[in-house]
Structure formats: structure tokens, C-alpha cells
């Protein structure tokens, strides 16, 4: 199987963010980066499929400035065979602009599967995967929590609100992967050494015009500081009173 996994380099979400002076982006000072949470799951799924299904190739693809090569190397260290860097100064917010650039690159790749994480943890849109599917005319299943591929057919489970659904689809297909399907492996030292020698191709990203553009980024107003109203079970009547008369939520 030939599998492309589209991964995104995102800031470490545990950090304290500040807004840059243009008010349209994060202040890059002090930011650390990592592979998007869900992208790690997608890559793990791809590696397991490749191992199980015999001869194949897992290709990691990422868009952005030169820094994304670090994320791609991590993907190679986990076990991908090669990497593709679609170079652009920045990654636009507009999923369709990103999707067009990826689709242009992936369309002639003869991939059996094109995998994405369910969403990027930074922009939190989750639109690029299904858009690429549509642009390539491929079947698509999003938010997959269980997956089985056999004889050119796939069966997937996806979680809905309060329910789940089973989905059948033919390969080739575009799939987006939810958390929990398979814990991403840690790169071994051997993998990290091998990754340095694996091919990493650089191409300019063919970004289209963006029609969804950032006007302003802001830090949301802080919640009012927390208040401890008491200790132990004796504080319960007061809590109930506050919930009923002050917050009016009970």
C-alpha cells in the first residue's frame, strides 16, 4: 500500500501564547513546535497498515516554512519512508487554499490512502482532509476511531454525538483519524539515525488565493478569578444557594 500522511507542525499547546504586534498572528518568540496531536495518530495508523499489508510506502507531507522539516524528520524517525515539504512562508487559515495545494501535489501520486488527523490542533478547522477528497474525487471518511482495510475495501467506525456509525468505502480514499485509534509510537534511536538519511524532497506549495483570512487574533478575556466558597460537605448548602440564586443555573 502506498499511503500519504499529511501532517502539520503546530505550536506546543501547553505554552502561554501572546499575540504579535500585527494582531494577526502569534508572537513566535519562545514558541516550541510539535506534530499535531491527531496527525500522530494518522501516521501510526499508516505505519501499522504498511507493516500489515506487505510491500508499501508511507510518505509524510507537510506544508509551511523550513521549520516543518523538523516535523517531517520526526515522521521519518517513526518509520515513514520519505518526506515531502511543500514550502510556503506560512500556512494560510483557509482550508480550501491548503487543500488545493495538497491536491495538486497528491493527485498523481497513486496513493491508496491519503490520511490526515481529524483536525490541526492550532487552527482547529478540520476542513482540509474532506476538501482534498472532494478536489480529487475520492471517497472520504472523517473522524475515524476504528479502521480495517482488506481486499481494496475499508470498514471504519466514526464517533458521532451519542452514537457511532459504521462506514464502508473503497480504496483509494481519504481518511481523517481521531484520537485513540492507536497510540503513536516513539521514534527509536535507530529510527532517528535512519531518518537523517531518508529522502526529503522540497517543492514550492502551489497555494491558491485565500478567501478566509485572519483579521484579528486575540487572547480571550480571562475568566474571573476562581473562588473557593468553603471546605468539606458543610459547604454544599452554600454552593446550592449560589448556583440557584447567583449563577441561576440550577
Amino acid at each position, binding site marked *: 500500500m502506498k499511503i500519504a500522511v499529511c501532517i502539520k507542525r503546530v505550536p506546543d499547546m501547553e505554552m502561554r501564547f501572546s499575540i504579535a504586534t500585527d494582531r494577526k498572528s502569534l508572537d513566535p518568540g519562545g514558541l516550541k513546535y510539535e506534530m499535531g496531536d491527531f496527525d500522530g495518530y494518522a501516521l501510526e495508523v499508516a505505519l501499522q497498515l504498511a507493516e500489515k499489508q506487505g510491500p508499501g510506502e508511507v510518505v509524510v507531507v507537510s506544508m509551511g516554512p523550513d521549520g516543518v522539516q523538523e516535523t517531517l524528520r520526526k515522521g521519518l524517525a517513526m518509520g515513514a519512508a520519505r518526506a515531502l515539504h511543500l514550502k510556503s512562508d506560512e500556512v494560510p487559515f483557509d482550508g480550501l487554499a491548503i487543500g488545493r495545494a495538497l491536491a495538486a501535489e497528491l493527485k498523481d501520486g497513486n496513493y491508496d490512502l491519503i490520511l490526515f488527523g481529524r483536525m490541526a490542533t492550532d487552527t482547529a478547522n478540520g476542513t482540509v482532509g*474532506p476538501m482534498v477528497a472532494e478536489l480529487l474525487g475520492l471517497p472520504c*471518511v472523517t473522524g475515524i476511531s476504528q479502521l480495517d482495510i482488506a481486499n481494496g475495501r475499508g470498514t471504519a467506525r466514526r464517533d458521532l454525538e451519542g452514537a457511532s456509525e*459504521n462506514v464502508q468505502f473503497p480504496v483509494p480514499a481519504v481518511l481523517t483519524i481521531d484520537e485513540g485509534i492507536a497510540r503513536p509510537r516513539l521514534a527509536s534511536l535507530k529510527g532517528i539515525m535512519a531518518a537523517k538519511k531518508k529522502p526529503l524532497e522540497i517543492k514550492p506549495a502551489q497555494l491558491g488565493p485565500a478567501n478566509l483570512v485572519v483579521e484579528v487574533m486575540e487572547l480571550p478575556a480571562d475568566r474571573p478569578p476562581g473562588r473557593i466558597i468553603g471546605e468539606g460537605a458543610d459547604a454544599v448548602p452554600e454552593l446550592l444557594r449560589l448556583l440557584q440564586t447567583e449563577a441561576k443555573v440550577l
Partner: protein
Amino acid sequence: MGPILAFAESRKGELRKVAFEAVTAARTAADASSAGEVHAVVFGAPGIAQRAAALGRFGADTVFAVEHAGLERYSPEVFTATLAERLKSGQYRAAFFTASAEGRDLAPRVAARLGVSLASDVTGFELQSDSVVVRHPAYTGKVTVTLRLKGTPALISLRPGFVTPAEQPRQARVESVQPAMDPAAAKVMVTEVSQRSATKLDLGEASVIVSGGRGLRAAENFKLVEDLADAIGNAAVGATRAVTDDGWRPPTDQIGQTGRLVSPDLYIAVGISGAIQHLAGMRTAKTIVAINKDKDAPIFKIADYGIVGDLFEIVPRLTAEVRKARSS
């Protein structure tokens, strides 16, 4: 200006709450921008058209009921083709979806089919003459982004729960229409939908969430959390990632950066320390209550009302007091 479209999601022949949210948003947008009518589109097996009147109650002028025996369940290809055809047929100004699991699957496909951009998971919108300005929480809710969406129709998916369905009744015209492609010809087939529990309220639809963390010490102690949710009524049970990772609760119960993002009226955190990963999923709740034995736990920094102490004493007492208040 042209009409505004709302995708009315249904499951097992019933409209979902998010359907009323999308129609309410479309009505609000139409009224605020002197746009034209609100058109709702609902898909389903024959009989779904009978649900159309309910959409009129929330402000739909026309309901297009796409009825077909093959549409008992979601079909991404049929829904995409039919909605794209409808949006191309009129001078639609905008189309509202919700960022539910189904909406997140469908809206990007419709957008790409039409070659227009999509603003997703939106918590605020304003239609202007040539564009739409939207708000969107990003970076696990730590940054609010204001975006300008250009192009017609403007496709918007709303964060579930952000719009409160509001009744603005009118007699909706109902048009029964055929799907734009034969459902049997679709490549992607949803073969089964399993409801996790007929009675259990979904985290996204509950106005109250009672959530448990490692402080509960063992899976069976979630009974305390369930009892409290039960006493409150209209409440759902959530969990932290630590708890779902340990298998105490199913992964679908996880609230946080990699789980569900929720904004209930009341969030009760039981035995939860308040890791950033968890706060990302619930910090937009209207009122937060924390019960934890460690007074320095980060959860107390954002909790409107905190009680320090032994949850095994506090929670049963709270459950009892809520029951008492309910029955009086």
C-alpha cells in the same frame, strides 16, 4: 439579497437540536442583513417531510425535504451533491451548517465542490455587504480569531450549542425533492448507526455536565458522578483524558484538547486537577464548580465556585441536597 440556507441535521428520522440551531442562525442572519428567505434542507427516509413544520417554528420559510428510501442514514456523496446543486440553483447569500460530526464531514465537501471557502466551528458571525466576519476559537480555545470570509455563498459551520434555538414561527412551505444522485450509487456507505444509549444525553447537548477525574480513584466510583448527574437531570457525564486513557470511561466521554469541546451552562468538575489539556475543553462553560481535595489544584483558578475537601463526602451530600431541592 438572496436566500440563506440551513442544513437541518436529522438522525433516525428525528431532527437534531443542531438543526434548530442552524435554522435559528440563518433566520438571525437573514433578519439582520435584510437578506431574503430562509431555506432549510433536510434529508431522510420517506416521512422526514413531516418534520418540516418544526423547522418553520424556528424561522424557515421553505423546507426542502430530500426523501428517499436510501437516505435513512447519512450519505456524504448524496448530501454533498444535493446541497451543492441547491446552492448553485439560487442566489444563495450564505449557508449554515453545524460543526457536529456530520456537519464537519459534509460542509467542507460542499465547499470544495462549489469552490468556495468555509468558516468552521464559528462562535460569532456578521454578514456584511460583500463578506462575512466570523469568530472562531483556535489553539485549543486559547486564542480567539476573527476571520473575514469572502465569496458567495458564504459557508459557515456553527459550534454546536453556540446558537440557542429561538422560535420565530411561520408556516414553512414544504417541497419534496429528489436527491441529486442515486443513493445506491454512492461509494461511501454508512451501514449502521448505533446509539450508545437511548436515554443518555450527549455531552454537546447537555446544559449541565458532571465530569470526573483521577480523584475518583477507581472506575466504579463514577457512580457518584452519575448519581449527581441523574439528580440534576438534563445532565451528561464527562471525564478527563487520564480517566479515559485508563479505561475507566469510554474515549467518547473525554473532554479536553483532544476530546470534546463543551460549553454547558454548568460544569461540575469532580476530582479533576485542571490540566491545560482538560481546561481547553471546558473553559467556556458558563459556570464552573470544582470539588477537589487539593486547594492548590489549577481547577480552582477558573472555578466560579470551589469546595476543597473529600469528594467522597461532598458529592453524595450535593446529590442529596439537589434531590431535596428538586422534590420540594
